[in-house]
């Protein structure tokens, strides 16, 4: 059966749904909006599954192709379903569906519910286009559209200045990256005369244009780094957490921020040849993995901890990509999408318990009130730490193994250290949120003093309110499914399964399944255990460091301030930009541009003022003028002609 028609349908159905839901967002009931929005993503997911069955079920995996446009060949956009794109599309639509369902409950109380679902649908369209395109143009269009979706959803609460600023920050930094990406694509076209993956990579396989590949690789990397929030263009990601939690889970954890990983995996023939660019990818990733894990240990906002954890995990994927272990990178993307989405969605439940307060210093003891959130969060955190048999262990192990077997000792050490830090910040996060005593807000003594009775009444009120949060089923089920996947997706897909799934996309590589190396696995687990135990010692309910950080007078240090990278960028870029804008807005525009325009007007007026004196209405003055003219004309003829 020919299923090629499904490819454009996967892309178009969520886009149509976004348009329809966006148009009827205020007329339809929230239930109708939910059904349409989730239904379109479910349809897309079903079609991806059908294609996957067809593709992987066939004996010889032949990519399924479809055109998207009917115009000429040069810029024709096509879609392709091969191992890599199906692998990614499965996660995009699958995780997207779960998070859509979660959002129907999480965002239901919001007055802009329809707008939210429409934007979420638009994101699914953009991301599907990104991963299903068979050429660089389609990829770039999807790339830009996911950036737009990210911008719209970070700034979803557009009345909050912080959200607006975060949205602008994310958009501007991504534009900076896109400049690199587009330059890279332009160089590709200049060198190979085509935008199609097959033609470009075929030309590279024949040894064409090798000289430019390092440059192209670096330019593509700039785009990937900005989109995936890697060093040094990572500063937008923590602020992106201003968006609603499902957005953080879907866009800023599971799918969009990993687009850079997809790009490098997809363009692997370039990085196979361009060893310099590949090593840059590896180092960017390795340093990002350690940086993110370190900074995550110093944050107090639950979603920011997870954001830096995402940064760190994507760093692992970049590391694997740079070392040529593309399958490992894609496998880690796969497991990471599940456990990180699970963490974010569970964090959404947690935040609901605290009425939107995301500060982990104001939490504590939640385990005794909500076992479900604790269990799912814990399972996903263990997967993130990478303890066997949780999912993260298998995928991270492949990455460490790649560094180990290639003898990249510096990168291997960094990656193992980052694994230790990962355990450290996860134990800290879990302990601060779920264990210990519940946080008691200090009674304000400023101003009017409250009587003991009033304080007690307020406390009872708060307690009653806290117990009122029963998590709806539409939020529980997606979290539960993702938690199960974070437990099982590792060993279920480890080894042969992912290799046979992905290998057709890497035809020039000699891929074979590797068993778990006891040295590497033992080392990473041991380091993780050490990191976790140190963290437990410091942050357990009666831990010393916990007391220090919970003290309201505690001053956060360098980790909380993200190594002052943001401060530096503020100083280097934001302030000069603001000063320039101020100069242009307050001096150059009113004095310079307006000055020229107003000056021309004033000149005409002055000139007219002089000339109007001539036209005084006196007959004899006109007569004199006529006479003078006659005299002049006559004089001219007499003396010169």
């Amino acid at each position: 059966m020919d299923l090629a028609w499904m490819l454009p349908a996967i892309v178009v159905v969520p886009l149509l749904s976004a348009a329809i839901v966006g148009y009827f967002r205020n007329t339809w009931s929230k239930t109708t909006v939910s059904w349409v929005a989730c239904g379109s993503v479910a349809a897309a997911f079903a079609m991806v599954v059908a294609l996957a069955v067809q593709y992987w079920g066939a004996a010889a995996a032949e990519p399924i192709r479809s055109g998207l446009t009917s115009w000429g060949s040069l810029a024709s956009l096509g879609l392709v379903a091969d191992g890599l794109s199906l692998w990614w599309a499965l996660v995009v639509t699958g995780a997207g569906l779960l998070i859509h369902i979660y959002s129907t409950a999480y965002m239901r109380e919001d007055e802009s519910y329809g707008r939210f679902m429409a934007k979420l649908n638009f994101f699914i369209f953009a991301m599907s286009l990104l991963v299903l395109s068979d050429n660089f143009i389609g990829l770039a269009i999807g790339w830009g559209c996911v950036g737009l979706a990210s911008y719209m959803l970070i700034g979803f609460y557009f009345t909050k200045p912080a959200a607006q600023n975060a949205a602008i920050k994310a958009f501007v930094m991504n534009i900076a990256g896109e400049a690199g990406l587009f330059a890279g694509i332009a160089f590709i076209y200049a060198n190979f005369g085509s935008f199609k993956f097959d033609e470009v990579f075929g030309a590279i396989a024949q040894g064409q244009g090798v000289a430019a590949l390092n440059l192209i690789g670096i330019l593509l990397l700039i785009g990937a780094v900005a989109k995936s929030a890697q060093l040094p263009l990572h500063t937008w990601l923590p602020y992106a957490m201003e968006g609603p939690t499902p957005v953080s889970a879907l866009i800023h954890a599971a799918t969009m921020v990993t687009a850079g990983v997809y790009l490098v995996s997809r363009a692997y023939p370039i990085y196979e040849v361009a060893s310099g660019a590949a090593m840059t990818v590896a180092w960017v990733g390795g340093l990002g993995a350690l940086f993110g894990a370190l900074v995550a240990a110093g944050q107090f906002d639950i979603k920011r901890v997870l954001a830096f954890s995402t940064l760190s995990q994507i760093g692992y994927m970049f590391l694997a990509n740079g070392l040529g272990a593309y399958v490992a990178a894609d496998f880690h993307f796969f497991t990471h999408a599940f456990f990180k989405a699970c963490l974010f969605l569970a964090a959404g439940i947690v935040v609901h318990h605290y009425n939107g307060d995301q500060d982990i210093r104001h939490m504590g003891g939640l385990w005794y009130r909500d076992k479900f959130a604790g269990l799912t969060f814990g399972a996903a955190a263990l997967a993130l730490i990478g303890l066997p048999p949780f999912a993260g262990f298998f995928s991270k192990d492949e990455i460490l193994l790649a560094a180990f077997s290639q003898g990249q000792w510096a990168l291997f050490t960094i990656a193992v250290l980052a694994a230790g830090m990962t355990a450290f910040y996860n134990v800290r996060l879990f302990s601060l949120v779920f264990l210990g005593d519940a946080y008691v807000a200090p009674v304000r003594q400023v101003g009017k003093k409250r009587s003991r009775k009033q304080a007690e009444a307020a406390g009872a009120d708060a307690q009653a309110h806290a117990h009122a949060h029963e998590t709806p089923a539409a939020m529980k089920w997606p979290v539960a499914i993702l938690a199960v996947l974070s437990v099982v997706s590792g060993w279920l897909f480890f080894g042969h399964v992912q290799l046979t799934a992905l290998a057709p996309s890497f035809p020039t590589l000699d891929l074979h399944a590797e068993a778990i190396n006891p040295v590497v696995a033992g080392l990473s687990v041991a380091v993780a255990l050490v990191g976790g135990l140190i963290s437990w010692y410091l942050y357990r309910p009666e831990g010393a460091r916990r007391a220090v950080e919970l003290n309201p007078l505690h001053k956060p240090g360098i980790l909380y301030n993200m190594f002052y990278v943001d401060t530096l960028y503020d100083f280097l870029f934001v302030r000069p930009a603001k000063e320039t804008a101020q100069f242009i807005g307050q001096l150059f525009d009113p004095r310079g541009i307006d000055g020229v325009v107003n000056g021309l007007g004033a000149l005409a007026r002055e000139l007219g003022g002089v000339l109007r004196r001539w036209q005084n209405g006196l007959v004899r003055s006109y007569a004199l003028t006529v006479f003078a003219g006659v005299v002049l004309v006559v004089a001219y003829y007499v003396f010169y002609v």
Partner: protein
Amino acid sequence: MPAFSLNAYVALSAVLFALGGIGVLVRRSPLAMLMSIELMLNAANLLFVAFGRAHGGYEGQIMAFLVITVAAAEVAIGLALTVLLFRRRPEADVDQVNELRL
């Protein structure tokens, strides 16, 4: 009839024209200005006729007739305006009639 030289006609015409011009410039009564304009036109007519006769053709005289016709039309309009002006104002001073000024 004594025959005067052409130069004499030209000189007379120049004197008449200058008198007319000065009259237009210095008199403030519209009636006097009209008369001065007539003087200038007739100075021109004198030249036309004098040169026409010197050349022995009729063109100059024809031109003089045309000028007389135009002058008659002009005087008709000018006098009508002057009469209206006298009706509207106690005295007719062209310097007071400056409503066309912007």
